[in-house]
């Protein structure tokens, strides 16, 4: 056999191996899935939870899962009655690997398992394709963290989220860059995911509207670790701010490499890297960088201190980002079931739309699209190795107008 033919076969086998890696991962999770199992006797209501539990943002997925778990264990301990019958809740947690294809498989599994509702998914890129399956099956879905505007613009009656979308977030960041940071020139990088690209597009629109010049638009992937080439290109354009639309696993090394190249521009981004993990990965270089988070600052969230205490006691780890949001989503879904007197999706869905809930993260109401009414966005800065809130943009009154603004659909 010649080397050429051999190498071609090698490449083909390798491609197969790559597929294998995609598929073999969920096995361990399937075994550990019915974690918050309910005791026999009462009627059991299954609630699905989906997030990446493996891969480079598994820490965020685990955090989401913990939020749902905490809510369900509390509900079971409190004893909930729906339609006069005592019920128990059970979480079925699945790993979507932050991969759109896997997400639809997971969604199908939830539909087949006849879950009463789904909390998830984490990423916009997985939430959007999965939402079609939930909509077809009539299963209510509440995402704690998918911020791409597209999610609620598809006209699905079942799609809700408890977080401000990227129109609000990108807009707030653009405004912050222009007015607070007085940036004249910005460069934008995104990771080509529905979330990263969507957020970067919204930021670009808002920045341009404020008269900021966009001097460069570069792209990477959500698997990359080397950003030297694109940062070098950006260096030549001398921006004041570099905006990154993506997650902490990339934002960390990106910030380090920025310093290596001697670029003085500030890094700025969305909720994808407003995490403790980002500070760890970027090290000292994280100091002074900005990232936003939909919602109020944690210390202004009405129930955060209490939630934080419970969470730490139970899981012995710090909250990453979205655990309070998954916790609220779970509880308000159950509230809707209680009001409707039924866990049947068709019966409690209309009640879900009427939600008016005081959650850990603040008051939650939905508009007709399923977006949260009055979503606020807080901008944080790393100071002495910790995220500190520096500004909160958007008010309950102003936000609905902003949410109604997007006439142009984000590109997919």
């Amino acid at each position, binding site marked *: *056999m*010649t*080397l*050429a033919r*051999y*190498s*071609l*076969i*090698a*490449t083909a*086998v*390798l491609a*197969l*191996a*790559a597929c*294998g*890696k995609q598929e*073999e991962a969920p096995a361990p999770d399937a075994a550990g899935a019915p974690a918050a199992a309910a005791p026999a006797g009462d009627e059991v209501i299954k609630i699905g939870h989906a997030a990446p539990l*493996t*891969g*480079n943002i*598994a*820490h965020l997925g685990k955090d989401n899962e913990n939020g749902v778990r905490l809510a369900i264990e509390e509900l079971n301990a409190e004893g909930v009655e729906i339609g006069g019958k005592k019920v128990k809740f059970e979480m079925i947690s699945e790993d979507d690997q932050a991969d759109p294809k896997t997400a639809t498989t997971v969604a199908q599994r939830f539909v087949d398992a006849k879950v009463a509702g789904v909390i998830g998914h984490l990423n916009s890129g997985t939430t959007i394709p999965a939402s079609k399956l939930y909509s077809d099956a009539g299963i209510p879905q509440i995402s704690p963290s998918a911020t791409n505007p597209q999610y609620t613009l598809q006209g699905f009656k079942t799609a809700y989220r408890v977080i401000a979308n990227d129109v609000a977030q990108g807009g707030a960041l653009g405004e912050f860059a222009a007015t607070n940071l007085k940036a004249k020139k910005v460069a934008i990088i995104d*990771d*080509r995911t529905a979330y990263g690209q969507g957020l970067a597009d919204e930021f670009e629109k808002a920045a341009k509207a404020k008269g900021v010049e966009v001097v460069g*638009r*570069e*792209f*990477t*992937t959500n*698997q*990359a*670790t*080397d950003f*030297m*080439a*694109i940062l*070098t*290109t950006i*260096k*030549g354009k001398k921006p004041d701010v570099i905006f990154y639309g993506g997650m902490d*696993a990339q934002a*960390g*090394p990106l910030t*380090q*490499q920025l310093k*290596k*190249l*001697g670029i003085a521009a500030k890094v700025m981004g969305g909720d994808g890297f407003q995490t403790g*993990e980002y500070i*760890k*990965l*970027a*090290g*000292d270089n994280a100091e002074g960088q900005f990232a936003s988070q939909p919602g109020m600052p944690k210390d202004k969230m009405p129930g955060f201190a209490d939630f934080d205490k419970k969470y730490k006691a139970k899981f012995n780890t710090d909250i990453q980002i979205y655990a309070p949001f998954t916790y609220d989503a779970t509880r308000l879904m159950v509230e809707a079931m209680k009001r409707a007197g039924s866990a049947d999706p068709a019966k409690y869905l209309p009640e879900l739309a009427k939600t008016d809930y005081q959650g850990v993260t603040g008051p939650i109401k939905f508009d007709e699209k399923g977006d949260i009414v009055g979503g606020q966005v807080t901008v944080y800065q790393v100071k002495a190795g910790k995220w500190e809130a520096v500004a909160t943009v958007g008010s309950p009154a102003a936000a609905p107008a902003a949410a109604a603004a997007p006439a142009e659909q984000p590109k997919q």
Partner: protein
Amino acid sequence: MDIFIQQLINGLVVGSIYALIALGYTMVYGILQLINFAHGEIVMMGAMITISAVSILSGSGVNLPGPLLVVAGLLVSIPITMLLGFTIERVAYRPLRKAPRLAPLITAIGISIVLQQVAVLIWKNNPRSFPDLLPHASHDFMGAVITDLQILIVVLALVVMGGLLIMVEKTKLGRAMRAVSMNQSVASLMGVNINYVISMTFVIGSALGAVAGVMVGANYGLAYPTMGFMIGLKAFTAAVLGGIGNLAGAVAGGLLLGIIESVGAGYLGPITGGVLGSHYQDIFAFMVLILVLVFRPSGLLGERVAERA
């Protein structure tokens, strides 16, 4: 112009990392005509074990300067990866030495998945930050920036290549390696212990893998259990590009691939008017692989070998 020089330097550094890893692929291929796909995972293991060792050392109050701490970490990780390499060859490749070539290729992929999952079990799936221990002062070079660490990586790749070439050409083990690579049965008739020679090849290759892993970790500031796959694939491409089985070829291929990628990522957008963006940098590596296989199957520095199998 300084931007272009910076892109070249970026490419040179990434290329040197590819070269260090490609040397491991090419050594094994030169002797066994086997592509050891588990090598990428050895690189990952080297990085992860070093991070753990360093954090345990500094956690237990050992107060060493940064570079010495990394060396201490390497002293832990190198023996472990050597043992891993030895075991992999013994378990997954030796029983299949007479089997058709596809069989050991499949066990190689199997081993690589096993190693990756074991790493997930040990270290969880989060990226680990690599402690900031190696010197990284920046130097100005014709308007571009290069750090101490990057210089170290480039020098290391060249030194390791030189060392391996001397070993293969001048030492007794090297002569045995060349003999085994030419013809295993004749070599064994001449009194060469081929099992020993092959084991040594894996052990040396794995030690290099650990060093490469630490360089990758230090350069990007992080390491994670799935890092071995992509970087291994790129290094394999580099080895094929340079002519697999050829040590100097692996380094030449690595450097060339690094530079092509870096310059490609830097200028792809402007050249295509924004149609193809910088996120297409990975397809460059594989386009190169395909083109080389089509036009020069034996690689840039590879010799045309007569059909043997």
